[in-house]
């Protein structure tokens, strides 16, 4: 571990391409030819080759990397696998990523952590949709160095013209994508041509071997020369005498004595100490895990970013970004997600999809939602102001992930383009007569009673009884339901998932205005998704939102069917009908859970009223 390797350091690269292009075989070949396969591993592979192998009597090198049982049987890599190998010149970490369309998210994962990509194409098939898709995703994720490995060149008789045609097709597509190096190499992973050894079968090829290129390529993109960015990960306060901010330097460098600013608050100080893994150091630079002590008692928390005074990140709560969707459940504008930017967690929603990118043609198309593996350019709104740099400037501070609030699945990956300036020009108006003052005039407590349940469950019936009773007690009330909103404010909305989300968002905003006016608002909406009910709950102050689950089994609703809708839905005459062709997600912790079967609407109303009266009295 001296000399050359320290100059070039570690190279992280990924391999991507279409199914059966031979990615796993290529990595197996690199490991095999680098003499990194241990004897017992090889014995296992030889045994497995006879059982699962696809290349007859030879050792199937793909079996070295296709790890999981299921994919061994299917012969497809279904996940990202990381492999390690080294030569006297350099160490490598390889992300083996799948070509299967539904696993594009894993390819993006591999790309986000890599500096170079090997994109495979089958010499017999040329540039396919997947080849273009992967080339584009590599570019979008900021990879600047790509290799096009034209594999199975043996199966086209080592033909130069075929190679040139494929390279030409690819270059036409890829040349505008901002790559710094694009290196096409004709290879046979199965037989090893031009992988680690120059092949005698391709005398017309004068470029480097694949391994030769990987050993030599310079991917240092001057991350140390960029602006200093230090996302605070953890506040280290073991005792009263020490207060430090731990984290990994995202970019640039800083030294003891440098002036820094906390990006979000604008507070400034100087760096008093830097603690590296072995104690005090004078400077820290990109990639270092350090603890920074400031000269002044400045308020700093996890998620804050320290930056130079004269060179701060942008700060915005609205910005435009590319979003790659990775979840089975589609991304709907208006729906709230958790967002992680650096070490900051906040909530965010897409306010508009500017366009969807067709990854095959790079053309833009209109979209109302993003499905799994789709990429869109979107406007975002976040609950907090977020410090960031454009992703093209800084991969560390310009990236974010979105997490589903209920399942906690990692649902989207985003790359920020720019802040939307208007965000800084909208100021919340403060009024002297406020919600509390208006409610006090009425001697009441403003609330939202949110009735959710299937169509025909009895929501509106119970809500009406509750409202009548409250009115008799002198309370100011108002009812919002589908009938008085669908015909007016929301008449542009249908019943697709995204329209349902927008419908509820608008209802929530209207309910919030009524609450602000001091009124008790009764809302009866099927509101089938937990995420939207939670969204409305979070618009209100603590304790203002009362979720009433009108729990009537779908069989009972079908039996009642007061509007004849279930009959139609079951015939297929109504699309997206909740309980029949669209899901209903029951509340997990409703404030009031009404079982309606075997009870009168009046009995149910009393239960709601009991809850409300306790709240108003308290």
């Amino acid at each position, binding site marked *: 571990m001296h000399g050359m390797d320290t100059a070039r350091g570690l190279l992280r690269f990924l391999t991507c391409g279409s199914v059966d292009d031979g990615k796993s075989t290529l990595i197996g070949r690199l490991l095999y030819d680098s003499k990194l396969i241990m004897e017992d591993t090889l014995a296992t592979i030889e045994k497995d080759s006879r059982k699962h192998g696809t290349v007859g009597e030879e050792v199937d090198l793909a079996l070295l990397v296709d790890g999981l049982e299921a994919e061994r049987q299917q012969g497809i890599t279904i996940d*990202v696998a990381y492999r390690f190998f080294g030569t006297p010149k350099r160490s490598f970490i390889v992300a083996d990523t799948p070509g299967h369309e539904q696993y594009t998210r894993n390819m993006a994962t591999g790309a986000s952590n890599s500096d170079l990509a090997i994109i495979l194409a089958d010499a017999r098939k040329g540039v396919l949709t997947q080849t273009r898709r992967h080339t584009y995703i590599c570019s979008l994720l900021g990879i600047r160095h790509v290799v096009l490995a034209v594999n199975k060149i043996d199966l086209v008789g080592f033909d130069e013209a075929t190679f040139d045609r494929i390279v030409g097709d690819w270059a036409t597509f890829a040349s505008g994508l901002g790559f710094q190096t694009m290196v096409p190499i004709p290879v046979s992973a199965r037989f090893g041509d031009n992988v680690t050894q120059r092949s005698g079968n391709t005398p017309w090829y004068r470029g480097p071997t694949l391994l030769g290129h990987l050993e030599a390529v310079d991917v240092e993109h001057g991350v140390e020369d960029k602006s200093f960015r230090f996302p605070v990960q953890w506040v280290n306060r073991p005792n009263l005498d020490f207060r430090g901010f731990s984290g990994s330097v995202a970019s640039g460098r800083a030294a003891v004595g440098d002036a820094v600013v906390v990006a979000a608050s604008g507070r400034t100080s100087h760096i008093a100490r830097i603690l590296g893994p072995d104690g005090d150091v004078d400077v820290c630079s990109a990639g270092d895990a350090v603890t920074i002590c400031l000269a002044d008692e400045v308020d700093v928390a996890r998620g804050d970013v320290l930056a130079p005074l004269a060179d701060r990140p942008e700060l915005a709560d609205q910005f435009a970004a590319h979003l790659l969707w990775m979840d089975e459940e589609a991304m709907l504008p208006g729906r709230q997600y958790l967002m992680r930017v650096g070490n900051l967690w906040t909530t965010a929603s897409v306010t508009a999809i500017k366009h969807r990118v067709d990854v095959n043609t790079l053309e833009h198309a209109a979209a109302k939602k993003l499905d799994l593996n789709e990429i869109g350019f979107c406007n975002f709104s976040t609950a907090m102001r977020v410090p960031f740099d454009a992703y093209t400037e800084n991969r560390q501070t310009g990236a974010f992930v979105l997490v589903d609030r209920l399942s906690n*699945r990692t649902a989207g*990956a985003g790359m920020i383009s720019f802040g939307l300036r208007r965000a800084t020009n909208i100021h919340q108006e403060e009024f002297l007569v406020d919600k509390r003052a208006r409610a006090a005039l009425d001697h009441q407590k403003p609330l939202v009673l949110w009735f959710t349940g299937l169509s025909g469950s009895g929501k509106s019936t119970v809500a009406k009884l509750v409202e009548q009773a409250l009115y008799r007690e002198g309370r100011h009330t108002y009812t919002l339901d589908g009938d008085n909103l669908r015909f007016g404010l929301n008449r542009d909305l249908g019943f697709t998932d995204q329209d349902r989300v927008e419908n509820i968002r608008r209802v929530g905003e209207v309910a919030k205005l009524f609450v602000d006016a001091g009124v008790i608002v009764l809302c009866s909406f099927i509101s089938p998704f937990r995420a939207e009910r939670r969204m409305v709950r979070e618009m209100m102050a603590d304790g203002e939102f009362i979720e009433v689950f009108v729990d009537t089994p779908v069989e009972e609703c079908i039996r009642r069917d007061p509007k004849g809708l279930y009959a139609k839905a079951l015939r297929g005459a109504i699309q997206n009908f909740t309980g029949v062709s669209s899901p209903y997600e029951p509340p997990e912790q409703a404030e009031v859970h009404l079982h309606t079967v075997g009870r009168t609407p009046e009995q149910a109303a009393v239960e709601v009223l009991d809850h409300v009266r306790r709240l108003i009295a308290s």
Partner: protein
Amino acid sequence: MQSTTRAGPGVGASAGRLTPQLRRLEAEAIGILRETAAGFRNPVLLYSIGKDSSVVLHLAMKAFAPGKPPFPLMHIATGWDFRDMLEFRDRRVAELGLRLIVHSNPDGLARGINPLDHGSQVHMSVMGTEALKQGLDIHGFDAAIGGARRDEEKARAKERVFSHRTAGHTWEPRNQRPELWGLYNTRINQGEGMRVFPLSNWTEFDVWEYIAAENIPVVPLYFAAERPIVKRDGILIMRDDDRMKLRDGEQVERMWVRFRTMGDWPLTAAHESRAETLGQMLDELRESRVSERAGRLIDKDQEASMERKKREGYF
């Protein structure tokens, strides 16, 4: 028994100075440990006493300096750990002033489960996997830090750094969260857990080079010494106590051996070696054409056994 626990001499100029690659791996691992402390309510470091655990512990001491790691250590004791390991464990924990939890499966102990009578599969399932789940549940740990590396085995190669576990501690290989840019998703629902692997991107060789450069204490069993050995089914087993009954024709021989991995002594194969120092051992490792896990008898039970064990909750 050998008394040297410090890394031996013979590593030359690299001692105390890390290569750029090791510096990068060190920084990455420290970042992951801090993320675990920041992102979870009640994390724990699973301390298996092996070389990888020793490195994780060393990194944890660095990550939270000048304070101590804000989480305890937990050792899952199967009753068949090498005596040297237990002695080493207690000494290290005392030296560092850390809190150690030792958990064994009481039910398994009561039933007398052991690797010699019940076989490695039953033993590891009851005394390893079940005991681990119990330990996590009893203390309500929501994140468990371990020393597993992606280069160890094929099923590990696809493991995440932050690896989600369902409320039943199972691993669903088809339902793992994508990890982009090191923006780890540490969110879990009530009852669920996370396994955290700071050494994901290290190789066996990185681990030993780091141990050498940082002078990290490791269990003396990694170094060659004359030990009491029984040859059984072509494998060298160190007879650490007389619970292992000799079969007809078997005898205990004094042989120069060392171990490449740590585990329960009846399930861990020794190999003949004269590598008494770290330098000699690194030389031996460079020459080796056998993988690390070849010495682990538990991995050979059945094809893809690691994946199966991981799904069931094994580390």
